[in-house]
């Protein structure tokens, strides 16, 4: 299911994850979010940007348990918990937010 953003076609795998992570832009993120029926707010962007920072540092997309722990350390308990993240990304924060962030599917996502 390729995305068309600003006239460019962006290839994805069969689950909608970007084939070439280096192509990611905020516009592409917005297009993926629209396809996922996620209405991006500042809180959504904060998670997406946090995931991209995590990926830059460790070269993997974190498992949900690891994401919540890392979010808790950086933003506090009110954001570092499952409920907060599932409210933002109902189909799974790790899967849905990673897809919007242009990351691969989380390792250890079974």
């Amino acid at each position, binding site marked *: 299911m390729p995305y068309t953003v600003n006239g460019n076609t962006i290839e994805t795998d069969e689950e909608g994850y970007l084939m070439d992570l280096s192509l990611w832009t905020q516009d592409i993120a917005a297009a993926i979010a629209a396809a996922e029926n996620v209405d991006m707010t500042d809180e959504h962007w904060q998670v997406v940007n946090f995931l991209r920072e995590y990926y830059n*540092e*460790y*070269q*993997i997309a*974190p*498992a949900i*348990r690891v994401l919540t*722990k890392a979010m808790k350390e950086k933003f506090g308990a009110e954001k570092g918990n499952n409920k907060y993240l599932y409210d933002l990304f109902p189909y799974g924060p790790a899967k849905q937010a990673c897809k919007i962030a242009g990351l691969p599917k989380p*390792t*250890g996502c079974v």
Partner: protein
Amino acid sequence: MSEEPVFDTQGVVRKFMFVNRKAPYGTIYALEILESVLISAAFEQDISVAFLDDGVFQIKKGHDPKDLGMKNFSPTYRALGGYDIEKLYVEKESMEARGLGPDDFVVKVQVVPAAELSKLMAEQDVLITG
């Protein structure tokens, strides 16, 4: 035929050790073991990871595999702490034979002599080598 479920693992914590013996690039072993370690963390088992022989190079600082067309996955070893995997062992003899020391690694490790590592291996329920 037993009616017992094959995977009745509820509440059972087993000791797993992943043993890395090969250089990081050139084969897929190192990356596959690393992914297995990350996946195993989801099951709340007692995980440890050992590096010996050329496996010690997997966590050496300064990987640059661009020209091999491979991704540098060594930063991922630094994510293991976030996955609560904190028992990382390097075999002393392998490390010294390759002119390396504890400061040459991207993660904090316990350096253990071969004899001690073999004792640790004997204590495991499951050993997975690559």
